[in-house]
């Protein structure tokens, strides 16, 4: 048992447990807090994958900014616990069953495939996954998509104000 496998196991189990709590929690606040911990454990897994930059962005943007927005809206709406679980309609039962079916299909396929190399010990470039390398890639090859994303965020910001405000 090497350290990396142990760390992966701990992070993976904690991620799945937190994600399960997101789905099963009665109150939206508990869901949101479980989602924050899911994001933190996923950031740990990203570090194991040598994606340090994405791990930092995950903690800053997801666990920070987006979850603050979620908590702010939950507090603003002042919802209590779910008074009743919605009736299990046919649509809902079929939906849940199809989620389990997809999981089964994916697990069987991934278990069977031989295309994946068993070990990842490629010659590791020293710059792989660093802020310098990812930034270099974004600002040269992916500059236009980056600018498009900035425009998208501006439009989303203005649109959110327009939709949420009762009278402009």
């Amino acid at each position, binding site marked *: 048992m*090497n350290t990396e496998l142990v760390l*992966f196991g701990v992070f993976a189990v904690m991620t*799945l447990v937190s*994600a399960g709590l*997101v*789905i099963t*929690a009665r109150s939206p606040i508990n*869901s949101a807090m479980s*989602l924050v911990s*899911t*994001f933190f454990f*996923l950031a740990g897994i*990203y570090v194991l*994958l040598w*994606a340090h*930059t*994405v791990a930092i*962005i*995950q903690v800053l*943007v*997801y666990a920070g*900014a*987006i979850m603050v927005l*979620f908590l702010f*809206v939950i507090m603003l*709406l002042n*919802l209590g616990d*779910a008074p009743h679980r*919605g009736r299990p309609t046919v*649509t*809902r039962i079929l*939906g849940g069953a199809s*989620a*389990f079916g*997809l*999981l089964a299909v*994916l697990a069987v396929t*991934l278990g069977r495939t031989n295309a*994946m190399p*068993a*070990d*990842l010990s*490629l*010659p*590791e*470039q020293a710059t*792989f996954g660093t802020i310098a390398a*990812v930034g270099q*890639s*974004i600002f040269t*090859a992916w500059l236009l998509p980056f600018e498009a*994303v900035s425009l*998208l965020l501006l439009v*989303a*910001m203005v*649109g*959110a*104000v327009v*939709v*949420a405000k009762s009278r402009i």
Partner: protein
Amino acid sequence: MVPITYYLLLAAALFCMGMFGVLVRTNALVVFMCVELMLNAVNLTFLAFARMHGDGIGHVSAFFVIAVAAAEAAIGLAIVIAVFRSRGSVNVDDIRTMKH
């Protein structure tokens, strides 16, 4: 070294949990949170394949997914607030104006 298949299995499990939540939960806010779970599963897959190929493009894709998720959360929560203001509920079963 952790085999790449483990990462992909974790991503598949996370995606299916998010899908289950989207299809089963009735609270619109929790549905949004489950969409975020699915986006994170996709990010994990991107990063696992980036690690497998030693290529940085997966990291750039994950960055863009996170940016689009931020925009989606802002717009979606604004819509939730607007619906709550007009209907007094965030239960997706109560919102069926566009159904017929």
